[in-house]
């Protein structure tokens, strides 16, 4: 089942590109600060069971209107704007990293408008004893080791986006523009500390919730899984051995099995 790319415009005026496939209960996948990587077989697999919809955040890919989103509430409402624009009824929400932070914010904003919530190593909480690396001052070559258990996996995912030849000025410029749009947008909710006080609002979370974490996550370390468990006592937490931050990309089979087990 191959994913189809479509576009929808929200009431706020954001133009949202999204991938879609499958039928049945809608499952909205919200990508992280690094974007939606082109190699995403887990989406197709899930589309065998659900109507999978994976939008790009404004500022990413062909989605536009990032200047309309300024703070956490804007991002959460934008998520619901996409649900409304597509006419989805009580979708499952599944968010990865920054996408998990926004999915959780959506769920506390409108606790009864979703079915189930899957948070994949979500951002949004902060532990002083486990400071999350500053992704805004990282050099590109420092990223792979933070993203996957085996850095080579992240290297392949990152390189897959483009052949990056930084001696070519046009390529460099294009890379800078993409990066400025993507992480510039993400910075509105992640910079300088990826904590917009979601913890104050998590008491509102009513949906059945699953929290998934890679044991080798070096970006948001597994201590945060315990924190989520403490903040959301009804959540079921599952960890993946030999897996880093990019769980859906690094262990797609195990990831899909866990998710389908939870969503039914």
């Amino acid at each position: 089942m191959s994913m189809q790319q479509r576009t929808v415009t929200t009431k706020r005026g954001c133009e949202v590109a999204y991938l879609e496939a499958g039928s049945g209960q809608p499952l909205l996948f919200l990508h992280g600060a690094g974007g939606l990587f082109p190699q995403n077989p887990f989406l197709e697999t899930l589309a065998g069971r659900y109507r999978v919809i994976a939008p790009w955040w404004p500022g990413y890919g062909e989605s536009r209107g990032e200047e309309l989103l300024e703070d956490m509430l804007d991002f959460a409402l934008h998520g619901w704007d996409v649900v409304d624009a597509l006419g989805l009824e009580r979708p499952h929400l599944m968010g990865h990293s920054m996408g998990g932070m926004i999915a959780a914010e959506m769920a506390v904003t409108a606790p009864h408008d979703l079915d189930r919530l899957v948070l994949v190593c979500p951002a949004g909480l902060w532990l002083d004893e486990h400071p999350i690396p500053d992704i805004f001052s990282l050099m590109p070559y420092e990223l792979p080791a933070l993203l996957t258990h085996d850095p080579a996996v992240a290297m392949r995912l990152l390189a897959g986006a483009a052949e990056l030849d930084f001696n070519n000025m046009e390529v460099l410029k294009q890379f800078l523009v993409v990066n400025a749009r993507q992480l510039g947008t993400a910075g509105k909710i992640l910079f300088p500390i990826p904590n917009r006080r979601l913890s104050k609002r998590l008491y509102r979370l009513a949906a059945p919730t699953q929290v998934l974490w890679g044991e080798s996550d070096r970006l948001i370390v597994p201590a945060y899984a315990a924190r989520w468990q403490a903040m959301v006592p009804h959540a079921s937490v599952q960890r993946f051995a030999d897996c880093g931050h990019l769980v859906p990309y690094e262990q797609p089979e195990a990831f899909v099995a866990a998710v389908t087990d939870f969503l039914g």
Partner: protein
Amino acid sequence: MKFTWFHLMPWPNLPDDFRSSNRSVWVDIPSSLYDPEQGHHLYHEYLDQLEYADALGFDAIAVNEHHQNGYGLMPSPNLIAAALTRRTSRAAIGVIGNSLALYNPPIRVAEEFAMLDVMSGGRLMAGFPVGTPMDTNFCYGQIPALTRDKYLEAHDLVIRAWRETEPFAFDGKYNQLRWVNCWPKPIQQPHPPIFIPGGGSVETWDFCVENDYNYSYLSFTGYLRGKALLDGYWERVAKAGKDESPYRGAFAQVVCVADTDEEAERLYRPHVDYFFNRCLHVHTGFADPPGYRTVATIKTGALNQYKPLTPDALGELPWGQLIDEGNIIAGSPATVRERMEDLIRNLHVGHVFLLFQVGNMPGELVRHSSKLFAEQVMPHLRSMWPDWSDDQRWFPQPMSDRRELEKQPSQAMVA
């Protein structure tokens, strides 16, 4: 021409292995490298140097704001400027400047600059940088993509606070104030001349052009590299149909003057080397957080100019190459005069911000170089823009009847 003697106030005791042992002079520089008791002597030595520049006849003395920075010891340049109002009486005092988005609420800048203008008798040059990513984003936590928006709002608030004569309410996105009422007000009306230090953002060029502010290009990599950027600015000035007064532009330049060219290399080379190799050693990851520069600026295409000079490359540059490439202007008074004429003409600037104190240069060399410039270079460059000699729009207009500061009797005399 207007000559501003500009101080960065670098820490002069960074160790020889600073570059290999530390990734950055800025943001995460180890605080163990700072010694407060040495700092005491240093602040007063640097204040003495600024006061000496006033005595030498420079038109202005200037300072700037940096945070967590081994080459800039002025998180609050306003404190330094306040000290300067007491022991100088002639030169304009430039604070180039206060990063508006970092003051909460930014009305603080309107108040403190008004205080400085009043204390100095109307000698203030008011600088409003958007701020470097290192200071603004990484040290002071401002969100890169919203920094410029917040800056512009703060600017509007400060200017209105200076202009309005009645209290007003300000309903901004980042600042909500029910009662804005700047008190005291500046002497220079409606406000002191405004200088916008920039690094080449097209938005900043247009902002200066629209508001008739001076655009000050403050890189420390020299005028040959700076030309492309200032050319871009002058194009915007022409496009907007504004006059071409050179006083719309300023440029910062490292200058070292000695009796001969050979002597300049001998005296200043170690300090220039310290400056480029240690002071400018900034972690690349702190230099350009995504969202800080707009897509429009990235697309202007002058990427070569935006690339920082890598300290590695500079470390290998021989003295002659530093001079040929314009990173520094150094040599005998005649040589410096010739290069300065070249700079002023080529960049079309009426203001130069001159860095005589370079890296770990000791006070006596700073004074030697400054004095040679003031006596043997500056007089020859004074009248380079005869057509604009009456243009006072970008220079302070102090009050005429300024207070003579009382001389206190020494403690011995009191006893």
